[in-house]
């Protein structure tokens, strides 16, 4: 088991310098999600307009994997259509299952492929994406 497979430089960079950390106006779609088994917590806010993710921000606390994943996810889906965002969420699930997935739209995400070898940490990586799915569903 190689720790460097999990904690890649890109991940550590997102953890140390999270993109899109913060809050949006009250009217934004807000999803609060916990990981009840470990206490990780994310609050995702999105401005969804004309079927597009106009803006996405998050706050929360958790490990390097959950927080870097939230940073990447918000960055990745910004400006995308809802369908495209959901498609990326689906692709991310594949990545967690060890499927050979490429993210041409946002290559940083591929750094999380190593999580697949650490089954206990998959739920950390998927927390933000689950929040995204919930947010889009609730807006429909």
């Amino acid at each position, binding site marked *: *088991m190689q720790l460097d497979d999990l904690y890649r430089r890109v991940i550590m960079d997102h953890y*140390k310098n999270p993109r899109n950390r913060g809050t949006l106006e009250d009217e934004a779609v807000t999803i609060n999600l916990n990981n009840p088994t470990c*206490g990780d917590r994310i609050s995702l806010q999105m401005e969804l307009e004309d079927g597009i993710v106009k803006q996405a921000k998050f706050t929360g606390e958790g490990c*390097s994997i959950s927080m870097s994943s939230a940073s990447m996810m918000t960055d990745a889906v910004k400006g995308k259509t809802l369908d495209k965002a959901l498609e990326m969420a689906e692709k991310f699930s594949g990545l967690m299952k060890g499927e050979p997935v490429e993210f041409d739209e946002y290559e940083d995400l591929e750094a999380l492929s190593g999580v697949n070898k650490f089954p206990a940490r998959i739920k950390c990586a998927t927390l933000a994406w689950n929040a995204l799915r919930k947010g889009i569903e609730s807006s429909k």
Partner: protein
Amino acid sequence: MNAKEIRELFPILHQEINGHPLVYLDNAATSQKPRSVIDAINHYYEWENSNVHRGVHTLGSRATDAYEGAREKVARFLNASSAQEIIFTRGTTTALNLVASSYARSVCGEGDEIVITPMEHHSNLIPWQQVAKATGATLKYIPMQPDGTIEVSDVEKTITERTKVVSVMYVSNVLGVINPIKEITAIAHRNGAVMVVDGAQSTPHMKVDVRDLDCDFYALSGHKMCGPTGIGALYGKKALLEAMEPIEFGGEMIDHVDLYDSTWKELPWKFEGGTPIIAGAVGLGAAIDFLEEIGLDAIDRHEAELAGLAYDRLSEIDGITIYGPREGRVGLVTFNLDDVHPHDVATVLDSDGIAVRAGHHCCQPLMRWLEVSATARASFYLYNTEDDVDRLVSSLIKTKEFFGHAIG
């Protein structure tokens, strides 16, 4: 006692995890099982398996003897007055829920109080929240000192004549503190309340005497004390148990069944509806034999030594925070390391073959009290050695370096 020799008796401990010999330090979550317990369960299934209390045939008698024999062992282990006072349950959670649902709901009403502490495990907290909501009783908390201990004077102030139930964990699964159960029990009784003890973390590690404590109920889990999962017990004083209604109904627990009414078996069976956890009870009995052979006092001393050593060695690591007092604790150390999240700590330790727990430990209110979202915890048992502490310390130093470098 010799921990290295005891270690030999646990098959699971002799394997490599991620290329390193396993160091198992998650005993507060669940303990490992000695060969004798595994063999006892196998023997039961290979030679005795049958349903209890009903078969006329020979196997039925063997199974019943094995099951009831295990109950006798639990009774003796806790120094209960009789085996009638021991109800087998699925574990501590089920035992505490039984007291809450049967006893507490029948005695609590508007204006009454239930007293617990903020350090309780969710299983000794949510059942009481639910009773309070259902009955209109008030849930009150005994305040904690900054080091996580409880002062008897605060217990005196919190418990009043309106208090019907006091429920406190004997040992904290996070802080490691041993609570003054005997003193709290005396105060509860002086005010006419019953005393419930969550013994999940005390029973595996120290001698427990329910009659000396004088508590009214005491709950334990088998799997934390070398026994299998899925079995635990509730001790209750006979008069209280006799007055309580069952909360599960069905086979095994009845005396007479009519179309519109039924009556219950005598203690303890009226609380054990359905085919019980027979092999689990047998395994728990074997675990008690095992622990008694080594001696609870010796186990207690060994763990206190390891915990003291771990506390001191970990304290020397720059950037570590340890929760709970140094003295008066059982064999566990809960900590955080700088800004490294406990999940990340646990992953790095795991890569070195060391198993620790990371998270909120089913104690969310306590985590808020500590002002952290999660912690890491190393918990020791009779098979852990000083070498395990060494391995933990060097892996933590590595973790610190790894993340210091990675996060910068």
